[in-house]
């Protein structure tokens, strides 16, 4: 196998030799049997590597790919990471990787994770030109350490400031929004790559809240602690259908003061949170933040007036986006 530097160089020039073609694609991965397992529960993997950050506090980027491989292997039950990815993504389709750079440098999706996912996608048969790394705008991508590229022969990276938003307004419940054309036109499947953060209004921002970055006026959805805004937005059909998998970045996080970067509240869970059920992922992430806040002697999010009520709303009978009941979540911590 090429080393990491060679691989990334090859990826940038579109010269990566692709692996064998997947015949199963996402259909095999995303049937109910696989997504929820035999138990009928939503599966969520929390993969940790305590050595992800060195003693000097710096991220050891080489370990991110190994952590991703462990998470995906455990989730899919396949030891070979490339084979596992072949069962997650369809061949010949454009895959979007929706990052989150809103918090600015210091608390944005790590570029090392984006590149690790892109590397495995290409080894699983996705061509470089079929990968789009995207977010709201250039700034949000650059603070992640990513470089803008719109050349379709290579892995692309651009924001909705380039693509624009649909003229037609979508509506679902309280959400009246115009969607990014990257979501509606450019991508056929989206993998969410949110970063775990406390949020001054919503309580927690992670898998579902990351979708605020795909609409033209996210601020309109913040009323009531983003409830039911987050749940309603995730029910918009295009989002529900295309955003099929989440690789949550909990490599570092802020447990208070978010969604901006507050170094005094920075914390390194050194983890990835992986799954298809965004409600179950957010429920799991919420509990991680609560544990950290308790450890730091802080109030619960509820006591702080920002309990993430949108998670329960997303699981209710109206929305049915997934499970928030711990009894219905098969949590695998590795």
């Amino acid at each position, binding site marked *: 196998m090429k080393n990491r530097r060679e691989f990334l160089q090859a990826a940038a020039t579109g010269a990566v030799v692709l692996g064998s073609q997947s015949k199963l694609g996402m259909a095999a991965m995303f049937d109910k049997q696989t997504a929820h397992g035999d138990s009928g529960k939503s599966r969520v993997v929390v993969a940790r590597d305590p050595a992800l950050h060195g003693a000097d*506090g710096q991220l050891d980027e080489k370990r991110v790919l190994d952590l991703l491989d462990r998470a995906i292997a455990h989730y899919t039950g396949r030891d070979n990471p490339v084979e596992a990815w072949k069962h997650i993504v369809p061949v010949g389709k454009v895959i979007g990787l929706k990052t989150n750079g*809103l918090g*600015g*440098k*210091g608390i944005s999706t790590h570029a090392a994770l984006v590149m690790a996912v892109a590397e495995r996608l290409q080894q699983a048969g996705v061509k470089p030109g079929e990968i789009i790394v995207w977010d709201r705008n250039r700034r949000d991508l650059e603070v992640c350490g990513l470089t803008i590229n719109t050349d379709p022969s290579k892995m692309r990276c651009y924001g909705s400031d380039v693509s624009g938003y649909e003229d037609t307004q979508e509506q679902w419940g309280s959400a009246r929004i115009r969607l990014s054309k990257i979501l509606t036109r450019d991508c056929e499947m989206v993998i969410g790559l949110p970063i775990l953060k406390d*949020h*001054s*209004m*919503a309580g927690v*921002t992670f898998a579902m809240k990351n979708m*605020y970055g795909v609409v033209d006026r*996210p*601020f309109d959805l*913040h009323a009531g602690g*983003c409830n039911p805004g987050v749940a309603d937005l995730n029910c918009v059909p295009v989002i529900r259908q295309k955003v099929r998998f989440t690789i949550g970045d909990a490599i570092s996080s802020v447990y208070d*003061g*978010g*969604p*901006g*970067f*507050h*170094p*005094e509240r920075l914390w390194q869970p050194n983890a990835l949170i992986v799954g298809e059920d965004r409600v179950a992922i957010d429920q799991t992430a919420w509990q991680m933040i609560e544990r950290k806040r308790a450890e730091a002697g802080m109030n619960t999010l509820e006591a702080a007036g920002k309990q993430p009520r949108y998670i329960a709303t997303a699981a209710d009978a109206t929305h049915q986006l997934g499970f928030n009941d711990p009894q219905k979540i098969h949590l695998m911590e590795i």
Partner: protein
Amino acid sequence: MVFRSNYASFRWILTASALLLIALVFPGCKKKSIDPFPASGAVTGWEKTSDTRTFAAKDLYQYIDGDAEQYISAGVVTTSTSDYKFQGQLEATVDVHTMSAADGATRIFQTGATNDAKTVSIGDAGVAYGQSVIFRKGPYLVRIVAFQSTPGASDALQALARGLEAKL
């Protein structure tokens, strides 16, 4: 002649009073002319590495998303931001929030206060952490955040904060 001279004096006093009143009633006129961001080299070791971006209250969500609400409810008028680098290594971002009145800056300052903050004498009130400095001065709330944790970072950030304070 005496009448005309008195009349001229009266008009002058009236004009001056009107200007003073305008300055007091519309303090925003003065705020708009302030550029608090020190140029490269103005504070030893610090280089300004980006253009200044300014967001009106209605657009603040574009910059800080959900955080915008607390600033808007506290009366933010504009938020300006710029990036800096210290001695070519330590990267930092400076946010200057201009509120409609000093109590708005005080409210945000107090909301963000935590027990582990070290009080610093910058502006009307200030606190420092290892990687950040926050202070308020009149209607301004300034937040400086570094992205690396290095020895001496806090001192460097405080020096930059004093450079900003001097321009407010």
